């Protein structure tokens, strides 16, 4: 999947030489909205970590753009503080020196022509002084409503077009719209200026090691593939639970809700990775084709009232602390119908998955922070044991733990030691291990490097985004027409309607 731009020409590169890391070619990155939380907590530390691991090109430059009266040094100070506080790898002065020499700051509004002229000059200067070679990535870490301004300005000032020898790329973050319509509008804005292969949509979940491990687990092993279908799988549960409330995100969250915030992107992508057929290779296009095929064959249950559930957290005790309900949070209107919990049932209309429901759920203020995918198998068709012996035997399950306790669990029945034949569930664990994960890169590191390398397999494409909205939109519409969400006690696993929704199918949610 790795395509190095100049491999053919470079005698020092050898496909056999797997120690050599991929170092991005000469380039720079411009971050719009550099004062935001994401930039400070994730992007800047990730850039530093990449530099520390020696993966950034010599001369890499970072330009900040924001509405602040800062000099270059003030910006460097902000980055310094962010790096010291949030970076994963230890702080090293010499790495910092190398990196800081390439910091520039351009103050301005998103509609400020003069500021964009300055940006133009700054980039030209960097090409001259630092050898960035005209290669620049624009990271839009800003609310979507400003996209059209920024992208328009980039176009107007000739910043969006590369030459045959250099590239320009644009990076955008979720949310990719709030429904199909707005996603299309957003895409129109961006695609008017940048060709599709230059647009990188970041879904940081796809940068996680454990998510990439899904591909390894499924396609590098012989063990799972034979049972990875409707003959053996009873159903699949995909859960992303958070124990926190909305915190300070009231302005963003209200009106968006859990389904739009999480199901449309993260959970749909996870589902696609679990359900897709084997791609012919791991390049971006093959992966995309398979993911699209699956998303296209997804269908919703006819009765949305019976097979979906949404909730809103009520005041209560969570993890030993009294917490507010959603409606009591600051900045939330008391009559808000925003869902903080969403669960939906989907099916995939393929031979492999016929009749196997996928249950997706997500929520805030749930029991604990956990993301996992559980593939639950059918019961053995015949048990040569007495009914009493297998009373405590559940269904076999393969659980992919995405976070925080990264790993894989297999659950199966084992004999309880003793004279009687009694069978009970036991688990077999594979753990990435706490320390192991410490040394594995942050999702943003991987993704930023991939942007600079122009390596797109881990980025969802526009078609996938649209397909996800197509699946979700009717559910959102149905919910919008049917009053307030059910309330659930904070610190628990969601509203009663979610439990009922599975009970109708004769199933229960796993307690993750």
């Amino acid at each position, binding site marked *: *999947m*790795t395509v*190095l*731009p*100049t491999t053919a*020409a*470079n*005698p*020092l*590169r*050898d*496909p*056999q*030489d*797997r*120690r*050599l*890391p991929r*170092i991005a*070619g*000469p380039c720079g990155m411009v971050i719009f909205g550099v004062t935001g939380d994401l930039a400070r907590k994730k992007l800047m530390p990730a850039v530093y970590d990449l*530099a*520390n691991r*020696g993966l950034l*090109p*010599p*001369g890499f430059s970072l330009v900040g753009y924001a509405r602040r009266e800062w000099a270059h040094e003030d910006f460097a100070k902000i980055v310094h503080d962010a790096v010291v506080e949030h970076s994963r790898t230890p702080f*090293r002065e*010499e*790495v910092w*020196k*190398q990196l800081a*020499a390439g910091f520039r700051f351009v103050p301005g509004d998103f509609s400020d022509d003069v500021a964009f002229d300055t940006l133009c000059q700054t980039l030209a200067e960097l090409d*001259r*002084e*630092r*050898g960035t*070679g005209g290669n620049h990535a624009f990271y839009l870490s800003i609310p979507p409503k400003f996209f059209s301004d920024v992208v328009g300005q980039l176009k107007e000032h000739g910043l969006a077009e590369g030459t045959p020898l250099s590239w320009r790329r644009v990076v955008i973050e979720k949310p990719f719209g709030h429904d199909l319509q707005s996603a299309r509008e957003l895409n129109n804005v961006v695609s008017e200026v940048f060709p599709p292969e230059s647009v990188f949509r970041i879904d940081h979940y796809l940068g996680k090691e454990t998510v*990439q491990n899904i*591909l*390894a687990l499924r396609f*590098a092993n012989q063990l799972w593939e034979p049972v990875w279908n409707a003959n053996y799988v009873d159903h699949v549960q995909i859960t992303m639970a958070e124990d926190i409330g909305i915190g300070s995100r009231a302005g963003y969250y209200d009106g968006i809700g859990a389904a739009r915030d999480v199901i449309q992107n993260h959970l749909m992508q996870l589902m696609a990775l679990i359900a897709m057929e084997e791609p012919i*290779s*791991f390049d971006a296009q093959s992966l995309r084709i398979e993911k699209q095929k699956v998303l296209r064959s997804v269908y919703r249950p006819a009765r949305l009232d019976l097979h979906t559930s949404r909730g809103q957290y009520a005041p209560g005790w969570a993890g030993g602390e009294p917490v507010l309900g959603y409606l009591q949070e600051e900045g939330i209107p008391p009559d808000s119908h925003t869902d903080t919990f969403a669960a939906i049932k989907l099916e995939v209309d393929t031979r492999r998955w016929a009749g196997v429901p996928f249950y997706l759920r997500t929520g805030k203020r749930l029991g604990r922070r956990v993301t996992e995918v559980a593939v639950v198998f059918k019961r053995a068709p015949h048990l040569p044991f007495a009914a009493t012996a297998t009373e405590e035997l559940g269904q076999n399950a393969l659980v992919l733990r995405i976070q925080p306790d990264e790993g894989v669990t297999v659950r199966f029945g084992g004999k309880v030691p003793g004279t009687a034949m009694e069978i009970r569930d036991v688990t077999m*664990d*594979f*753990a990435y*291990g706490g*320390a*192991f994960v*410490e*040394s594995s890169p942050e999702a943003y590191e991987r993704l930023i490097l991939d942007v600079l390398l122009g390596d797109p*397999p*881990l980025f969802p494409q526009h078609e996938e985004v649209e397909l996800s909205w197509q699946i979700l939109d009717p559910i959102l519409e149905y919910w919008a027409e049917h009053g307030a969400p059910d309330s659930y006690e904070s610190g628990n696993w969601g509203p009663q309607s979610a439990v009922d929704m599975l009970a109708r199918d004769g199933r229960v949610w796993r307690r993750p």
Partner: protein
Amino acid sequence: MSVELTASNASQVAAALLQERRKAGSPAMGMVLTLVVVVSEEGLYDAFKAAKAVAREHPARILCVVRRSGRGASNLDAEVRVGEGNGGGESVILRMSGELVGHADSVVLPLLLPDSPVVVWWPDKPPDDVANDALGRLATRRVTDAAAIERGRQAAIMRQAQLYQPGNTDLSWTRLTPWRALLAAALDQYPAKVTGGSVSAARSNPSADLLAAWLCHRLGVGIERKSSKGPGVTSVRLATPGGDVEISRPDGRLATFSIPNAPPRPVALKRREIPELLAEELRRLDPDDVYADVARSLCLLAGVTPVPRREEAADPNATMPPTPTRKPPRRTLPKKAQASKATKKTTQKTAKKASGSRARSGRS
């Protein structure tokens, strides 16, 4: 938890390991390999510490083999530790004396984790022919460090290169990865024909010899080896018709990267510690074909004939160790495996496995 066993044997050690695991509530066995550290009593502390640090990234059962005096009665003392800061792994320090010193493999063999790779690491002076050493034969991967030897480092790396067998590797090669990455990046940025070059480094620096051999092998031009005050490799210069591509690192920390038509730029290029090097080494456990080529190139440059290479160890799955009583495998088989584009001159057939491309895509 630590258990000390005196006048012991391998089955007692194995029993102690099991018992300690049970006491700890049988936590999940995440260990992926066995790391055998063959070390002297003086080197034990540092080597053990490094091995434990590495086990955080590559959970491993660490077996430290300390050979004491060969005189006197045969004796095995063992110190068994489970789950204390070594990444959920286990470690055993095996101190051997008397006649047992010559049969260390008989203790190690029963303690290897089932069906997983075995790495043997000699933090100080290794035996001359590691692939034919009794312990080395148990391993999928044999790690030496020519730079750790007090005297005769250049001779040491020559010997390793000459006696190279698939699965051998030396940390002086590992030390070069950042240099090589940067040089490759330089030629990515400035893809010109290289007409000559030089490597400057401290006198008797095995890494510099390997770097020169690598450049010479890949670029097909003569590379001069110059001496400098160090530390380590201080600069690499590649001559091209448009000017020099140069990376210089006078202080062992911050390098200057210059290519024609572009301003010189600072790059952090730190000398790495042993645990980091070892962790890189353990990331891939199949034979390093590029190192094999470089070892051959080093021999050719020095006018030394490399010994023929074995075929069987080339299989990374061949983890089943030979029984200690078996005769050493013949080394005079016709050479088949591990030929490379540049060096397949004589009768060698390219039997290279496509492992390269496979493992690359696995990086996703």
